[in-house]
């Protein structure tokens, strides 16, 4: 029974990682850059919820009841997603767009600079002390089926992440914008000749990725309701690991990689002997995988041509 609980928890954590990994993999596929600041968008999302929730509580204090509380939490989540979307677009326009066509190293260092900047700004505004961000209204307690005890949050997270993944797959597969995204990732020049506005597609990609990161931050907060300025960096790195494991640039790959990593993390944490080394194990898997299959599980190996 404990095995099953750990497994479900792992799936749910993996769902969150997958959501973040999708942002990495889409940006990589389309803009051919590693967006190091993606992890910090998660952090910004968390702080947005932290700022908006008390504000809504004051605004709605006259009519406060559980339903209103749930609605206000959802409004806060949407606000976070919209804010992160805008932030993602601004970052792309200001920091990455001028460097389009420059060496990958320059873009990578700029992305690191943006990540550093976002962290420092958050630290200046909110302080380095952990902030308690409790989305109480969305805490529904624990579901018990026989010996199985799983938080409702875990189930909500799992269901939401699956829904997001299905929606995104459908969007990429069937919508006009989604098709354009695939075209840009295949061949930017040819896509431009077919009349696709590449800049617009890149902007949309950043917006979607950032919104997913904000959503992921909410699920992290449901698991552990504390927020620090460096909150996003470790999940960010892990999600990137997940994206690389699945094959960077591949959307199903990011999903598989994320879920795989989440399950591994939960099982590693469940074993007392190796639980302190959980992070080391996850990163070792990345290095070993790169040795065995450099393109990741579902990635395509690109040959560089002259």
């Amino acid at each position, binding site marked *: 029974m404990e095995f099953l609980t750990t497994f479900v928890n792992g799936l749910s954590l993996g769902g969150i990682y997958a959501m973040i990994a999708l942002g990495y993999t889409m940006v990589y596929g389309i803009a051919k850059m590693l967006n190091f600041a993606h992890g910090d968008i998660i952090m910004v999302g968390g702080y947005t919820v932290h700022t908006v929730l008390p504000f809504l509580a004051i605004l709605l204090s006259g009519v406060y009841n559980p339903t209103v509380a749930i609605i206000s939490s959802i409004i806060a989540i949407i606000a976070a997603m919209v804010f992160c979307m805008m932030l993602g677009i601004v970052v792309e326009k200001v920091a990455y767009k001028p460097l389009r066509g420059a060496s990958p190293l320059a873009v990578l260092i700029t992305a690191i600079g943006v990540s550093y900047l976002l962290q420092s700004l958050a630290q200046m505004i909110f302080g380095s002390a952990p902030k308690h961000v409790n989305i109480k209204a969305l805490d529904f307690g624990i579901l018990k089926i026989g010996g199985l005890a799983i938080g409702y949050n875990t189930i909500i997270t799992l269901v939401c992440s699956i829904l997001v993944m299905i929606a995104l797959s459908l969007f990429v597969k069937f919508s006009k914008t989604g098709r354009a995204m695939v075209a840009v990732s295949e061949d930017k020049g040819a896509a431009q000749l077919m009349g696709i506005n590449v800049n617009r597609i890149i902007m949309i990609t950043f917006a979607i990725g950032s919104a997913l990161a904000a959503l992921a931050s909410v699920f992290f907060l449901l698991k552990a309701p504390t927020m620090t300025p460096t909150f996003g960096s470790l999940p960010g790195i892990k999600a990137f690991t997940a994206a690389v494991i699945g094959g960077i640039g591949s959307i199903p790959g990011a999903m598989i990689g994320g879920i795989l990593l989440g399950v591994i993390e939960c099982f590693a944490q469940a074993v007392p002997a190796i639980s*302190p080394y959980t992070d080391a194990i996850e990163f070792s898997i990345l290095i070993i995988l790169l040795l065995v299959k450099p393109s990741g599980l579902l990635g395509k190996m690109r040959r560089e041509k002259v």
Partner: protein
Amino acid sequence: MKKFTSLKNYISYIVIGLVTVICVILSLSGVLKASTAILLEEIAIKIMLAVSLSLVVGFLGELSLGHAGFMCVGAYLGGKVAYVLTQQLGEDDPILNIVILVIALVVGGICAGICGFLIGLPALRLRGDYLAITTLAFGEIVRTIFLNTSEESFGGPIGLPTPRFNKEWFYVICFIMVLITLFVIQNLIRSKHGRAIKAIRDNEIAARATGINVTRYKLIGFILSAVFAGLAGVLYSYTKFNVSSQIFDYNYSIEILVIVVLGGMGNIGGSIISAVLVTFLNRELANILTGNLAVLKDIIYAVILIGIVIYRNAPGLKNFREKYNLKKLFSKKKKTAEVTSDTVAKEEN
């Protein structure tokens, strides 16, 4: 003109040698404060880190985000060896101390080099982004492992106790190590192998086509950089009473990267200058900015980092860059000014 170039080759040694001699004279006459000596140690370690990272980032054109990880390996293993040996052999004999230091440096450097080899082997055969993420992962792995060691082995969360001999004179050893680092790395860059490394940076495919063994040269550069980071780590462990793995996190690697980028990628003299400036400013700003304002320093660094990279690399700013080129502005002045401006603005190649 040839005289100038030969002088330029040695200018960094001369400057660092002079600074060391001046400091020794000052401390012999008792003017040099203990806090200044500590600052000098910090600066020397930062220079070593910046120059060694510059080899990978500036000359090889690969991004390493695990420099603090290699330093951590050196600090822990070298520090442990030094600690055990001083415990066993006593700490009074100065010659014995030096011998122990050399042994610790060798152990720390070799271990960091082995780690560099193990990390570089899979990652360097792939595209650049993978090296960045693999080195980042490596840094985290090293930190996690040392954090979770038992108290008897490496101190775990408490940290590793280290020997610290002769407080007043250790900066001299640090500067000697800086000179050795510069000697090795500058000579490498100016040699046939260095030109091969730069060729790989400029165009990997063209380099491969001319018969350069790309993987081998990338590995050489990467391992050498790791070795010197490890040596810097050993020195670091000597300057502190206690080595804590918390310090060697992602942000420390980023700080070294900031130094390298600020100094100008592929410019060792620039790396040295910016290492001195950043370390000095770090300490001064830490005194001035307290509380929530302390983070202002990081914001400034981040903005400068982004600004410099965009300014130097953006394709849209190419005309602007050529119009307002520092080097050109300087070269219009008299020839006597050329030597000084060259050391600041001239790129290594």
